[in-house]
């Protein structure tokens, strides 16, 4: 069962190799919708290592899963702000913080919390991200000027469409929940 954390660690280190990070960060949408999720997935895969090693810590601080979920939401939201991306490209310390925070403050709490929270909370989180992604999508597409110093406006529009299409995918999932009740099948 330790293969997952090892794969996660390798993924994280791979994403940190300078040329890999450079390619990923050269295009705005790859930076936000490929590099960042990959770091989160790396953390998600590493989570069992921490939950097994420090079970008391997780059961004490994250018994209901709500604190973990809040941490997940806050750090995720922080990294969808244009300014945060600029900072990561400008200050090496922020860049390092990006890798660490997305892996250990997003990926790890997500894995530990998701199965602890109720179905209703899970759907609430999805609705939250649906709204957030729709808002960000509109912002990035409609903003009259450049939001980031490092990326030109046309890349910003592409990223906006990226947010909107993911929001649509989440919407499709939420709508099918109205018609299909998982409890009928499990």
């Amino acid at each position, binding site marked *: 069962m330790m293969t997952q954390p090892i794969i996660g660690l390798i993924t994280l280190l791979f994403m940190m190799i300078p040329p890999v990070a450079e*390619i990923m960060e*050269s*295009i705005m*949408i*790859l930076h936000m*919708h*490929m590099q960042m999720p990959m770091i989160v997935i790396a953390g998600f895969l590493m989570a069992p290592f921490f939950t097994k090693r420090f079970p008391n810590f997780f059961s004490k601080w994250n018994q209901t899963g709500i604190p973990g979920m809040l941490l997940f939401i806050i750090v995720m939201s922080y990294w969808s702000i244009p300014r945060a991306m600029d900072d990561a490209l400008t200050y090496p310390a922020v860049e390092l913080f990006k890798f660490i925070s997305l892996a250990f403050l997003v990926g790890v709490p997500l894995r530990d919390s998701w199965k602890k929270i109720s179905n209703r909370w899970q759907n609430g989180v999805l609705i939250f991200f649906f709204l957030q992604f729709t808002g960000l999508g509109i912002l990035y597409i409609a903003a009259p000027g450049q939001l980031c110093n490092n990326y030109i406006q046309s890349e910003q*529009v*592409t990223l906006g*469409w*990226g947010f909107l*299409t*993911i929001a*649509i*995918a*989440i919407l*499709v*999932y939420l709508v*099918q*929940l109205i018609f*299909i009740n*998982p409890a*009928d*099948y*499990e």
Partner: protein
Amino acid sequence: MALAQTIKEKANNALGVNPLDAKITKSYFIVTFLALLIGGYLGLIQGLNRAGVFELPSWLDYYQVLTAHGLLLVLVFSSFFTIGYFYAAMSNTLGGLLPKVRKMVWIGFSMKIVGFVIAVIPLIMGDANVMYTFYPPMAASTWYYVGLVFIVLGVWMAAFGAFIQVANWRKNHKGQHLPILSYFATGVFVLLFFGTLPVAIEVFMIIPWTLGWIETLNSMLARTLFWAFGHTLVNIWYLTAVSAWYVIVPKVIGGRRFSDVLTRVVVMVLVILNITGGFHHQIVDPAISEPVKFMHVFMSLSIGFPSLMTAYAMFAVFERTGRAKGAKGLFGFFKKLPWGDVRFLAPFIAMAAFIPAGAGGIVQTTYQLDQVIHNSLWVVGHFHLTLGMSVALTFFGISYWLIPHISGRVLTKKMNKVGVITTIIWTIGMSTMSIAMHLVGLLGSPRRTSYTTYGDNATALGWDPYLIFLAVGGTFLIVAVTMQAYNAFHLMFLAPKGEEEFPIAEEEENASKTPFWTERWSRIILIMLVVVAMAYVIPLVDFIGDPGSIPWRTW
């Protein structure tokens, strides 16, 4: 309710095949093997023409033949087989089809036939020589596209029928895992539905354009939508073949299945990653920037993971089974395999062919290497290996037990032998043709081009020996095509009556319990949609707003 259901299932098993369900699969298979027969002869015409030994009559255009060949084999042959096979599998493993589902799949059947007729009429009249890819700005008669719409709608009927069947079973078997073949069926029908969505959008853009209601059409957008579909379709046939490798072949050789968890993970991964692979068909297209192409090399190669898993799984099963039968040494298990059984031999050759086919695929998905062979006969050689060997031979292998099973007949020793001979001739023919195609492609001979010597240019004349080999391979193939179609109809209508088993292998002993997340299809589909969105958004945003083209008739 649950009790009533189990009793019904028991009764179904005791009575053998439900005749109403069998009729569905039989009808789909009749179309399958007719398409193979006609499509095969058209292929021979192409092969002979390209070798310069057969000149087409003035009323027949090379590209007309090529369009029909592609349409019949890549669309009709494979989709009718897949639907017929998985409906038989669902009938067998889910306790018979629901009456409502039966009705849906019949409506789907007629819609596909009607659609096919509507598309074929302009093709016969020479108004649709656009090949099965129908890239704009080439434009065929509007009717061709109307026919395609009906075919897609027919496929959706079959897909939704399958969803209803599966949902109903799960309601009555709460908390249980879907039987493995029906799990494959679910994956395949999910892909069939989501994979045909982009082409439906494309065709709904093309129809008003050919009617002149809109002036221009964005060719790059259309091509991208086409390949989101085309690539998925090809992988659906592959997944169908893979289902037989994981589930049927182990039983035929007297063994057990490979790990249930990993099998289901392979299906999930293929469903999630498939649609995004479409870009490797556009790797040389202009208007897609290099970083995006670079990224898609990874996307395509990531499909290599489930493929490698499959190769590993198959050899693990062969070895385990062989050892259980007392095989010794490193490769001793090879001798214990039932080489004389066509139900094993055909899919085995299919798997073996996937090794060079996969290697060729990696060449094609690598930008620099692809530039050497792009649009050459190499590519044609590649998909005759993947489709013509890996997929087609697996389908043939299935036909030798499934057709007698649903027809209440048996596969006799003699028919088995004829099947083995057919398989061997097919293998000789397809290998010869495909090797010739790969080589002549490396020398630069283009695909989709009728016979020409380019004014006796020396390079073009140098292709001739290979093209002769291509035609020789094609001639072997046509013998095998004819035999295979005969075998299929013989097993359906003439073979001695009896009962043929539907071979489904058992799970391995002391297997670990399969986690239930493998059954949460809504989530699998959510992840799939997010991956598709991420992959397609950059190029699509780039294309939208580019100037379009008016329709052209290039022939």
